[in-house]
């Protein structure tokens, strides 16, 4: 573990990413303390630019709501959507990829056809349709994002399992009389964890982007303040109040950037052999 932290901290970008992400997480967690009032509350004149009025460092939006409050509360939504949808995508993709890679043959064929099928439908289009059908609420958006994000996981896990199952320690486990499930979950998957973790960190980032894109198209949960919503709502006033789309845009950018940097850091730290090549 110490070793891992040391390798991780050797990557300057990863440390920056971690600092940003921790800040975002802190803001999200502390949102109710920092801004106990609802972010929807209309508190001041609309369209206040940042730093123009004491107490509203980021100004107010089209209805006079505090942008800073929205940003902080929005962080919670973005992070929750990112994390939960990634988790769900992993829950679909990992077992599917694992079984496909491990059992091969018809199982593999079936699973991969299924995966390809989902990869053939343009993912954003599918997400839009799913959200429209289920009606946009936080759970449905999260689910829709998960449904369009799992295929790469399945592919990755399958490839990892395919290469791992030929390793001799798997043969050894088999000779020890272990059952297939025990070999798969006890020996193979733990060894596939590091690429999965790296991919997951990137998927969280992608999910945040997807959520914001959906919100932008008006397919967000209207009861929940999210960054994508803030941009979408400010899009029509971009000419007169550019900062209203700029600020949440930067928030998304920084968070996604942080997750990517962390992903790279994890990659370096978890796969030291590749790291030497990559850096």
């Amino acid at each position, binding site marked *: 573990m110490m070793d891992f932290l040391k390798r991780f901290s050797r990557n300057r970008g990863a440390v920056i990413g971690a600092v940003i992400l921790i800040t975002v997480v802190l803001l999200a967690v502390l949102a109710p303390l920092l801004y106990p009032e*609802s972010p*929807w*509350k209309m508190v001041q004149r*609309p369209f206040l630019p940042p730093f123009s009025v004491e107490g509203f460092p980021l100004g107010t939006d*089209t209805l006079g709501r505090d942008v800073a409050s929205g940003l902080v509360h929005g962080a919670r939504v973005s992070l929750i959507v990112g994390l939960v949808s990634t988790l769900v995508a992993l829950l679909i993709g990992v077992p599917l990829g694992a079984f496909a890679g491990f059992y091969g043959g018809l199982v593999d064929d079936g699973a991969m056809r299924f995966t390809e099928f989902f990869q053939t439908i343009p993912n954003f289009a599918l997400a839009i349709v799913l959200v429209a059908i289920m009606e*946009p609420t936080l759970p449905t958006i999260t689910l829709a994002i998960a449904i369009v994000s799992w295929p790469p996981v399945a592919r990755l896990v399958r490839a990892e399992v395919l290469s791992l199952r030929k390793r001799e320690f798997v043969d050894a486990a088999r000779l020890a009389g272990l059952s297939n499930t025990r070999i798969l979950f006890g020996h193979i998957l733990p060894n596939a964890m590091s690429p999965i973790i790296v991919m997951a960190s990137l998927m969280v980032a992608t999910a945040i982007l997807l959520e914001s894109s959906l919100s932008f198209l*008006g*397919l967000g949960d*209207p009861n929940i303040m999210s960054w994508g919503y803030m941009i979408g709502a400010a899009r*029509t006033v971009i000419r007169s109040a550019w900062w209203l789309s700029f600020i949440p845009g930067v928030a998304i950018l920084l968070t996604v950037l942080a997750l990517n940097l962390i992903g790279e850091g994890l990659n370096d730290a978890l796969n030291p052999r590749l790291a030497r090549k990559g850096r």
Partner: protein
Amino acid sequence: MKKIFTTSILSMGLAMPVAAQDAGGRLDIVVQPEPPSLMLGLVQNGPTQLVAGDIYESLLRYDTDLNPQPSLAKSWEISDDALTYTFKLHEGVTWHDGEPFTAEDVVFSVDKFLRETHARLRVSLAHVESVTAPDDHTVVFKLKNPFGPFIGVFEAGTMPMVPKHIYEGTDYANNPANNTPIGTGPYKFEAWEKGSYIHLVKNEDYYLEGQPYLDEIYYRVIPDAAARAVAFENGEVDVLPGGSVENWDVQRLTQMDGVCSTGQGWEYFAPHAMAWMNNREGPTADTRFRKAVMYAMDREFVKDVIWNGFGKVATSPVSSKTNFYTDDTIMYDHNPDKARELLADMGYDGEAVRILPLPYGETWQRWAEAMKQNLSEVGINAEVVATDVAGWNQKQAEWDFDIAFTYLYQYGDPALGVARSYLSTNIAKGSPWNNVAGYANEEVDAMFAEAAVAATPEARQEIYTEIQQTLVDDVPVAWLLEIEFPTIYRCEVKDLVTTAIGINDGLRDAWIEK
């Protein structure tokens, strides 16, 4: 009483600045969203009428005070018993394909075509006993009973004239000619680049000498509101019809040099924003709750911030622009304390209330958010339901809402545009345009029936005043705002809006100053 109007008087009146209009030029107008079809006889939504209003015409137009004006009919007469309407048609009018336009076309359009396809007109046609064409240029409508609003239905969107020689005996909806609409209007259909623009060109054979003035019109499809604003700024488009940019941009754009705007051209429709409140079940079934909602809402804030000061807070089911409006009703001001009192009185238990916003852009979305915030500030547990156009219609038609935003046109007369929302006979699942709230009051039913057929305007006014007083006290729906959709255009465009229907009535009179 006999009313006779002649072309000569009226065209003189209209062409007041006798200064010669400059002919020629091209106008680019935003149309949003892209119309599904240009066949006005089949589809009557806003975008369709915006474009097709140049192609199709009806017998009359209406000035901004809702007085009838000649269009295809050069004069008309209403018998003293108010049962016979006789129209004299212009002579020498031809369809865009060169066929002559005659009274037979009018009879076909009204009695055959529109009776089958036009839901809104069908309501008025129920009062019509017969439509006949004694000669090629005379049409006679005979009514079963006096029907005050009838003179108001001869507008292109309500009663468009369609060519008999093309549609008679065909399956109207699937007639291939629907893709190349043929009317009698000042502009002819030229091309439709789906997703991009609709191109109309001047009708050289138009029956009014020298008109129209413009050479061509491009209706531009630009799906994103911000992009539409940019397009106007860049000079790509010359006219932004009402509602085509978000309100926040309206102010900015109208402040630009050489940009003019007008709020006129909506008098006929008089869009009346309101929120259905489900009278059948949930907290909204309680009048006290509905009143609390009225007091909780800060409608002035909405007008000032969300609508940028455009419009007027609605005080009654009838728009102040429509005939028979009265301000002698209870006034609901923004009074959260009163709202809380009412809620306490009814013993509101915090049951969640679902607000269904109107899925027509950011303005409406913000409005729903503001309402939710207003309601929650007086202790109402409200949440906004996310939905799109289809879902919104479906939920209204299925009564699956507590509060639902909408806006309705008044069509110049309470009998056409108001009564439909409150008549208990008009409660039926399956349509978003009837008495969706489910308000049922026999007295009101009776009064509306009486008012529609009352002989004189004075008599009608009396009944309508009483209706308004009753309704405002019962608050079956929350009236929100008399919407004003300013039309924004470059100042060199003249006579863009000359009627109560605005640019939806066609650009017959518009010209560009050189």
